[in-house]
């Protein structure tokens, strides 16, 4: 079958541009003001528990989980809540509430509830702490981690895959994290394995990060779980870091259409999330900051660590400002990231990179049916059919081509010689199908 | 259920029957006027085809299968004709081969008087050149054995670019005449007896 379906070719090789991979993580000065949207994660928005005028400290809970698939939000600075505003989400473009906090510059922390014996914590306690720390998947999808750690009883998890691929060009935050905080990551993994009760884990790292592979292998071999964790070298190819492609690459299994990795007994977690789990369990620190890469058309591309809610402009200024012709700011990588309306947009839990670019959108041409998108699609779909059907408003036919299986990785649009924005058409089609779905 | 509704069930049947009857009567009437005319028209049309080769013909007779003909002028046999079929590029080619009134001991004695194409579906501008006189005239006064392409030693030059059509004509003539030779002989002898 490999003659007909060359699986290796499914995916693309955009130029890596990992210009910041040798830059140590730097801490950005505290912002003067933070804007914290109540919906920074997948699931129900959090519910605010502070009101205008309240004094808050760093790490103080300012919103609590709005449901099971939801997490609390903590203040990332110390200061005063000045207002609650309505703002457009930087991810979904939905309008939601956001809490604005004026920083007093003191950076006072709330009393940290640091467990005395982190290794002795029960499964329930760990889950509770993970949830209360507001941890979500930091790879970009921002799925609440405590939900992932509590699979339904009929789904036995036997393998954990740690995603250290970072297949998107430019981004190096996970790379730096693995180099500088490898031990914490592995401790986090240990906690996860304990919670899920499984004794098999893979750390998948792309071959373009040899130092990270070396570092992680060294740390794994020195740890007490060295027999259970395997560092897996993966070819540098986009989208290797999508959980479904990663799972297939490492375990040779496919997640059924419409299913989750847990359907085949696997949980995929980003390295950043593991670091956050470590912080929450060992140090009792909630999720208030993260590592992110600032790259592209900025004067000094850097890996930085910043508090959530910091306006992007402050981070960019810290990196020396933008080059003169830049007119696009992307939260996330160039392949799947979301272009932002303004430089003032605050970063959120899912923001793993700020990428500055010059707009290079070209005129959309006619599809010449070259099949590049079919060949590039990691999910083995036929993206061009979605364009054809969406253009003709034939939404029901989209299902015949398994549109729900699309992960919107952008490989199709990247290679399209006619510059067709395929992902845009696919998003329109999915949204239209969602509208028609009987509730 | 079993009760038949006269208006709903019987009337339509009766109506349709009446209509059919009327149309049958009408057709029978039209047929009675036109039948003879159609037959004569057909005969005339064929006679015309034959008279291309036998300009002084007055009558002809044919066998049961209607593919062999004997042509007369005032009861004198002046020649024979055979309908031949070749399979060409676009379909069958129907032809009429006119023969000199020779001794019919074997096919080798036959001499062609001429050839005409009755119907064909060859490519216009190419294969349909078989209907043009420069090609057909080659078949005048040719012995049966000479019906072969000049390339392979015969008397007939193929139409350039339409070798297939030319071959089809020749193969059609040869095979059809070989097939129908016996019935031609039979027809001729029966005519002579009467």
């Amino acid at each position: 079958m490999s003659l007909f379906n060359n699986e290796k070719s499914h995916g693309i090789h955009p130029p890596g541009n990992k210009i910041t991979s040798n830059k140590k993580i730097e801490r950005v000065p505290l912002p003067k003001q933070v804007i914290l949207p109540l919906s920074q994660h997948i699931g129900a928005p959090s519910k605010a528990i502070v009101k205008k005028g309240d004094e808050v400290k760093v790490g103080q809970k300012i919103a609590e989980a709005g449901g099971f698939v939801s997490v609390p939000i903590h203040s990332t600075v110390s200061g005063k809540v000045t207002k609650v505003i309505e703002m457009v989400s930087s991810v979904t473009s939905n309008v939601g509430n956001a809490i604005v906090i004026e920083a007093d510059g003191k950076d006072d922390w709330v009393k940290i509830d640091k467990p005395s014996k982190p290794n002795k914590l029960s499964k329930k306690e760990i889950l509770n702490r993970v949830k209360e720390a507001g941890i979500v998947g930091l790879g970009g999808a921002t799925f609440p981690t405590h939900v992932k750690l509590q699979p339904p009883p009929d789904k036995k998890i036997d393998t954990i895959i740690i995603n250290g691929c970072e297949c998107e060009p430019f981004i190096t935050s996970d790379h730096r994290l693995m180099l500088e905080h490898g031990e914490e990551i592995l401790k986090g993994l240990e906690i996860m394995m304990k919670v899920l009760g499984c004794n098999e884990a893979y750390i998948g790292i792309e071959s373009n990060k040899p130092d990270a592979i070396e570092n992680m292998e060294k740390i794994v071999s020195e740890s007490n779980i060295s027999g259970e964790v395997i560092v897996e070298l993966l070819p540098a190819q986009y989208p290797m870091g999508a959980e479904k492609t990663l799972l297939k690459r490492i375990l040779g299994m496919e997640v059924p259409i419409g299913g989750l990795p847990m359907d085949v007994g696997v949980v995929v977690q980003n390295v950043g999330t593991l670091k956050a789990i470590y912080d929450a369990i060992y140090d009792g620190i909630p999720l208030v900051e993260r590592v992110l890469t600032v790259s592209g058309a900025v004067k000094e591309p850097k890996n930085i660590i910043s508090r959530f809610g910091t306006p992007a402009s402050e981070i960019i200024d810290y990196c020396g400002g933008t080059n003169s012709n830049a007119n696009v700011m992307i939260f996330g990588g160039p392949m799947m990231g979301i272009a932002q309306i303004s430089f003032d947009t605050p970063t959120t839990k899912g923001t793993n990179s700020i990428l500055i670019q010059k707009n290079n959108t070209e005129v959309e041409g006619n599809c010449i049916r070259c099949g590049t998108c079919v060949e590039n699609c990691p999910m083995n779909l036929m993206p061009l059919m979605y364009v054809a059907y969406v253009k003709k408003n034939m939404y029901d036919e989209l299902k015949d081509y398994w549109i729900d299986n699309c992960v919107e990785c952008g490989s199709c649009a990247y290679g399209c010689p006619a510059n067709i924005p395929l992902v845009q058409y696919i998003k329109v089609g999915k949204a239209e199908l969602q509208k028609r779905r009987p509730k | 259920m079993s009760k038949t509704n006269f208006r709903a069930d019987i009337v339509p049947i009766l109506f349709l029957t009446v209509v059919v009857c009327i149309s049958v009567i009408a057709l029978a009437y039209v047929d009675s006027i036109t039948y003879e005319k159609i037959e004569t028209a057909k005969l005339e049309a064929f006679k015309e085809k034959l008279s291309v080769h036998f300009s002084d013909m007055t009558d002809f007779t044919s066998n049961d299968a209607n593919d062999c003909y004997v042509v007369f002028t005032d009861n004198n046999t002046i020649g024979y004709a055979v309908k031949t079929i070749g399979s060409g590029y676009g379909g069958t080619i129907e032809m009429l081969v006119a023969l000199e009134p020779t001794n019919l001991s074997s096919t080798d004695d036959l001499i062609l008087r001429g050839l005409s194409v009755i119907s064909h579906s060859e490519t216009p501008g190419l294969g349909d050149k078989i209907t043009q006189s420069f090609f057909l005239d080659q078949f005048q006064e040719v012995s049966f054995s000479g019906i072969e392409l000049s390339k392979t030693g015969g008397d007939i030059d193929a139409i350039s670019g339409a070798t297939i059509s030319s071959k089809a004509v020749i193969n059609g003539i040869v095979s059809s005449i070989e097939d129908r030779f016996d019935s031609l002989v039979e027809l001729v002898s029966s005519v002579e007896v009467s």
Partner: protein
Amino acid sequence: MAEETVDQKRLVVSTSPHIHDKKNTKKVMYVVCLALLLPIIGGVYFFGIYTLLVVLVSVITAITTEFLAKRLRKREFIMDGSAIVTGMLFALVLPPRIPLWAVIIGAAFCIAIVKEAFGGLGHNIFNPALAGRAFITVSFAGLMTSWIAPVKSVISLDSITSATPLGEGFSYAGSTSDLYIDLLFGNVGGCIGETSALFILIGGLLLLATGVIKWRIPVVYIGTVFLLAWLIPGQDPVFHILAGGLFLGAFFMATDYVTCPMTAKGQFIFAFGAGVLVILIRVYGSMPEGVAFSILLMNAFTPLIDRHVKPKPYGYIPPEKKSRFPLKKKAKTTDVADKPDQDSSTDKKEGKK
């Protein structure tokens, strides 16, 4: 200072991905043009400078027609090179001494009817150049069957009527190896661009090397013809692949993105079908050459192939096949039901270890 520039800047918002491969339609078309120059040079060498005129007229007519058609359809005319490719390909499948007016009519037909009437680039069902050739063949059968022998002089306007090797069959005076060499280098009668297998092969390899075409269609197409000719008694497989327009068709026509299937499996079916048709037409049909019609016929099948040969998507679980014997099926399903999915996946995993 920096802050000011940052704040006042207006940002452009577009959907992901924000980077793009350097490949685009225009570049693809110009690479094809470049590859086509080789067979054109071959044509000029063997049949004289007049053939260059034919190519030029064809290309100019194609571009002009596209411009006019776009104007008529009130669409923007973009010089994306596809008209040049069509014009070149069309000229290459014409006899060397075709009158220029026939070239104009044909090239205009290619663009106006076969391409633009269906909606322009990407929407045509048939390969424009081949459909144009078919149109001219049916229209002016006489012109399209008058071949000349190679004159091997650029300035010569001589024309000695000759038959193509395929039209003549095997009645070639000389040894088989001479025939092969003549066929390979193009020293035979035929269309402008289809005589020299070697030139076309080099052009085709250029396309393969630049990634414009995939190996599947040319290899399967030529391979099928070779294999079938080898299996049929009395046919010379080498002669069959070298003679006529098979190479030109396999590398430049059958691989046309728009009119061939997109999936690898579909391309196999397409190329195999075309190969079978070539042999059927050449050996059992009434025409000496069948490349053009084989590709056109398979073009007609392309939408069907694309509809039914979809790649198996990631994570696809085939629906349970309906057995024709319900009793047996029942027994089977209970078997399967006993073992949940989990088992099969762990099996796989263990295999991996």
